[in-house]
């Protein structure tokens, strides 16, 4: 991997991190009046995956979508405005954090019903195949989503039709407060399920962006060469509460030591150390990056905060397409 790519991967993770932290910081002002599911700790996955996608490729996401949206190239300003419920938001304020979209870059949309966007992503891949296009679709979802039957229905259909789709499972060990062991049989990996469907499958370290990048590369090549779908299961960890801006390890549903272990494996720290050790970036570079990102987010915040609210007359607009 060339330096430029490595730096870009790092930069993008850092950017998502800083944006999410800014959202957390501002959330308590009670101006972002919708649920937000932050992906702090999980940034390597969207970044490593989307690095292989062009604007022609499609991504669909779930409730925890900010990272996917940003990594795919979704506009920051209209994302922030959307979270603020503004008319200049990416969904005109009608969707909020759980319904981001930026079709111009192929980030089609996010929907928070668990697993519900997986078949829709498969449908985009199916359309591509029917139309003879050369696109790849990616569905991002969590470990919880693999418990929904529709997930399996999708694997079956994707395998049946050899669709150009990549299923990305972000396994952060929890669904809200519920650990894997109350939801899935002990010792059975999610990737094993996909193997049962005879789908190309890999299990990777979701906190190692280079690992994510490498595994995805193969999956995208497979998809582009019409060899069919892949499922990649990436192990990771969410640092903050399931929904909202706070830390919540004090609630006791996950142990402090577990959380600490994962903090040490923070994908950004890890990459920073790697790039530092290799002499690819310096602390100075990072300060520079942070500054750039903060400027960007500041102006996005201004855009969002100053943006107009949607007015009563658009309430009934767009119920039907004309």
């Amino acid at each position, binding site marked *: 991997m060339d330096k430029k790519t490595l730096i870009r991967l790092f930069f993008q993770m850092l950017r998502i991190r800083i944006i999410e932290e800014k959202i957390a910081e501002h959330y308590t002002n009670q101006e972002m009046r919708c649920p937000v599911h932050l992906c702090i700790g999980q940034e390597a996955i969207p970044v490593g995956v989307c690095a292989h996608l062009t604007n022609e490729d499609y991504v669909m996401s779930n409730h925890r979508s900010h990272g996917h949206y940003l990594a795919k190239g979704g506009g920051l300003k209209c994302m922030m405005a959307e979270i603020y419920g503004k008319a200049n938001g990416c969904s005109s304020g009608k969707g909020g954090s759980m319904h981001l*979209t930026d079709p111009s870059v192929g980030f089609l949309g996010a929907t928070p019903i668990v697993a519900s966007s997986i078949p*829709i992503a498969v*449908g985009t891949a199916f359309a591509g195949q*029917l139309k003879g296009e050369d696109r790849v679709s990616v569905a991002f979802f969590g470990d919880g989503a693999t418990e929904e039957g529709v997930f399996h229905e999708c694997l079956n*259909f994707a395998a049946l039709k050899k669709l150009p789709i990549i299923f990305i499972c972000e396994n952060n060990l929890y669904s809200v407060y519920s650990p894997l062991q109350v939801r899935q049989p002990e010792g059975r990996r999610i990737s094993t399920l996909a193997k049962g469907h005879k789908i190309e499958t890999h299990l990777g370290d979701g906190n190692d962006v280079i690992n994510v990048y490498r595994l995805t590369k193969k999956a995208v090549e497979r998809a582009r060469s019409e060899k069919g779908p892949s499922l990649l299961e990436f192990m990771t960890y969410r640092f903050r509460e399931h929904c909202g801006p706070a830390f919540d390890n004090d609630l006791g549903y996950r142990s402090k030591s577990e959380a600490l272990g994962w903090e040490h494996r923070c994908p950004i720290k890890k990459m920073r150390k790697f790039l530092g050790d290799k002499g690819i970036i310096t602390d100075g570079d990072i300060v520079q990056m942070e500054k750039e990102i903060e400027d960007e987010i500041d102006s996005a915040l201004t855009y969002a905060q100053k943006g107009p609210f949607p007015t009563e007359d658009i309430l009934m607009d767009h119920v039907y397409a004309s």
Partner: protein
Amino acid sequence: MPVQRIRPFFQAINEAIAQCMADDPYVYIIGLGVPDPKGIFGTTLGLVEKFGPKRVMDMPTSENAMTGIAIGSAIVGMRPIMTHQRIDFALLALDQIVNQAANWHYMFGGQMHAPLVIRMIIGRGWGQGPQHSQSLQNWFAHIPGLKVVMPTTPYDAKGLLITSIEDNNPVIFLEHRWLYHIKGHVPEEIYRVPLGQASVIRQGKDVTIVSTSHMTLEALRASQLLEKEGVRTEIIDVRTLKPLDQATILESVRKTGRLVVADTGWRFCGYSAEIIACVTENLFDELKSPPIRIGLPDCPSPTSPALSRYYYPGANEIINAALKSVGRKTNKETMYIKPTKPHDIPDADFTGPF
């Protein structure tokens, strides 16, 4: 009057699909049994031969995912027609239909749309029983973002289906099993019946009968006998349950002052309640007698013919309601329409099994 081209309902549906597919390469049809030898009661026969297996497809028994897949394909430019052999099977797909398809255009601020037709068959008779004969149109009509269509005549079946396929929204297209062999004039060329327009299929000044799907045929039967009794009915076939054509219904009731609603679904919390609420809210002072609704009683669909006989209201119930509405006593002897076939089969030559 131009020469009539008489065709059965199932063929009208078939023509609509075939012509839309010929017209627009992005239209495809998918569903359990679509290319099979029976072709969904004949409605999909010959399509796979004409358009090939990439546009006329069977699918796994995965209603939920397959609906989502159809939606996904629709938002990136395809125009899927999904078919369910029974509406009851679509209960597995409601997350995709209601949470996703219905909201898609709205919740992303109008940037995308999901042009998708979901054909569902409403069963009835020959012991289809509790899980193969529900008539759930009111569920779909309740959901903003969906359009709901229920044709009665072959003419409307073709014209409404073409319009539905061309519509840029998710359209729930409900076909009553008992209509497939009804015959009527069906022009050969593509034509469109607009969504959102009810059809006054009979004019009369005494009672307005608002009916859906197969109940429209029952209303027509009823109206002939009522005519003999001097009661002139105006029959309005709703056709598009959502968006509802209030104007046509209100105009009729403004004239007649009397309202009977006959729907194929359950009465309680059903579509007939909407019609009554709509009319009483808007035309309270013009109503001369209490509106009456006719629908299924509040119990599951029984399998035995001995019970289904009492389950499905028909022309006789409509006659009674209309007479009551004009303040006349009902007279069993003269009023009763005698059945010409067993009550649990769609046509005289039906011999089972579905």
